[in-house]
């Protein structure tokens, strides 16, 4: 292919340095090792109140599948048995507890994402972990404890190792 006769500069000098404050206000993600978790905490007891006020309208009274009820949002609560599950839930499918915090904080409640306080997010995370039989009702969930929660389905995850070629996998 023909190429530019002008060599690329080391920098184009476009854009500008991002300030620490700018980064901080946008950097809301949370990693499995806990990186990104804010100060604050919560338990299933307070989380239940958050859940009932702000989540139950869509995810159902407790988060569990209810016979005969078609919910407008996914089932969030089940046992922790992967094999033979009806739907994928936090209890039987999610590999990392930090993902609950990350996702709820950024995206829930659906109609008003990012309207919860960090404490509310910790609390409702505790509620969901407890309802899914993963942590105790009085477990305090915070930046320290959340990354240590071992999710039952974690052990099932494997990376896709397909690279094309004749084999169908």
């Amino acid at each position: 292919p023909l190429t530019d006769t002008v060599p690329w500069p080391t920098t184009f000098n476009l854009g500008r340095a991002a300030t620490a404050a700018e980064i901080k206000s946008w950097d809301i993600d949370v990693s499995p090792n806990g990186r990104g978790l804010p100060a604050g905490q919560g338990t299933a007891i307070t989380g239940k109140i958050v859940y009932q006020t702000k989540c139950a309208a869509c995810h159902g009274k407790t988060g569990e599948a209810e016979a005969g009820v078609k919910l407008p949002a996914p089932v969030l609560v089940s046992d922790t048995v992967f094999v033979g599950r009806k739907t994928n839930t936090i209890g039987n499918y999610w590999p990392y507890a930090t993902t609950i915090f990350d996702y709820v904080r950024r995206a829930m409640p659906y109609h008003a994402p990012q309207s919860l306080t960090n404490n509310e997010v910790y609390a409702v995370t505790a509620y969901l972990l407890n309802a899914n039989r993963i942590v105790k009702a009085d477990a305090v969930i915070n930046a320290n404890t959340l990354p240590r929660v071992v999710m039952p389905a974690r052990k099932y995850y494997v990376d896709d190792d397909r690279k094309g070629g004749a084999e169908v996998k």
Partner: protein
Amino acid sequence: QTSLGKTIQPVLPASWRKSDTPADDLITPGPGPSKLGGRSPYEKPVRLPSDISSRTPLQDLLGTITPSDLHYERHHAGVPNIDPEKHELLIHGMVNKPMKFTLRDLKRFPSVTRTCFLECSGNFRSGKETMTAQEICGLTSQSEWTGVMLSTLFREVGIKPKANWFLAEGADAAYLTRSIPTSKGWDDAMIVYGQNGEAIRPEQGYPIRLLLPGWEGNMNVKWLRRIELSDQPFMTREETSKYTYAVKDKIRQFSFEMDARSIITSPSYPAKVEPGWNEIRGLAWTGRGKVTKVEVTIDAGRTWQLAQLQEPVLSKAHTYFRLLWYWDGSVTEIASRVTDETGYTQPTLKQLVDYRGADMGGYHLNPITSWLIKRDGSVLFKPESRK
């Protein structure tokens, strides 16, 4: 060149028309040129929307470009309304120089144009005979994209050696995030602001989206506002709870490439085929490079013939295929299967079930699609069971 002007009156009474005039009924000039064109009133292609997605009417399309207003959609919190003057892209994390770029900045960098497909990795539906290609696999479309190579921006901010992954985050109300290997950024990822010759459409990520040629649609984050480099994946909801699937007794994660796939779009339900010469037409594609061949069966899989591929065959692009077909009026089954440059051949649903198990979920399914040809020329989808 002359102009009719706005001043001409309708000077010519219809009674002028005489009996020996040579042609049809009274002829009158149509409307003149306009600022924006539109479709013929006889053509009404539409997407098939649900609450969360809409599907491209593959059976109505010709050629390889999907008209932008018919590009499939998959949103997680609807389409945000973004003022392009205010939109900025933040690149930070394991970089030497965290930076913010305005849309204007991005457009000043060296640009690239590339035609490639997008496909939702949940793009397979089955169940009944009266299904269109749109219903079966309408979550794929193709555009000509224009933007800046992500590698160009990587050079600008300086990627730290251990930054093997990056997070891409959208500015939709779900702040959708995915983790992507940094190698894809160095390879062929782009940040695109152009689609089919003009600004990218709102449903496709206006003013900018991430484009990862050949990789699952969901990773091509729309309304892109943030990229964070890291030494590990972030394990977002979209790569754990979603876009993973059971394979035997395991859960397979990080299936990025879309596997080779093809479908006959003509003839397909609800079209009717007439006896005599017809052309079987369809689309084939692979996330792993180029389509190398498409085979078509007109006798329910007994024999397969090589179809013609429309050139130019582009990498990671919908490739049009065609095969001449004389339909003698008898009942039969037609289907296509593609082979890509890695040597992978599109499997049957049974092959997928055999390996993955019947519980394999709905992601990354690319089975051969068969159409039943009835004696009256009707064309019906042949649903296959997973059990």
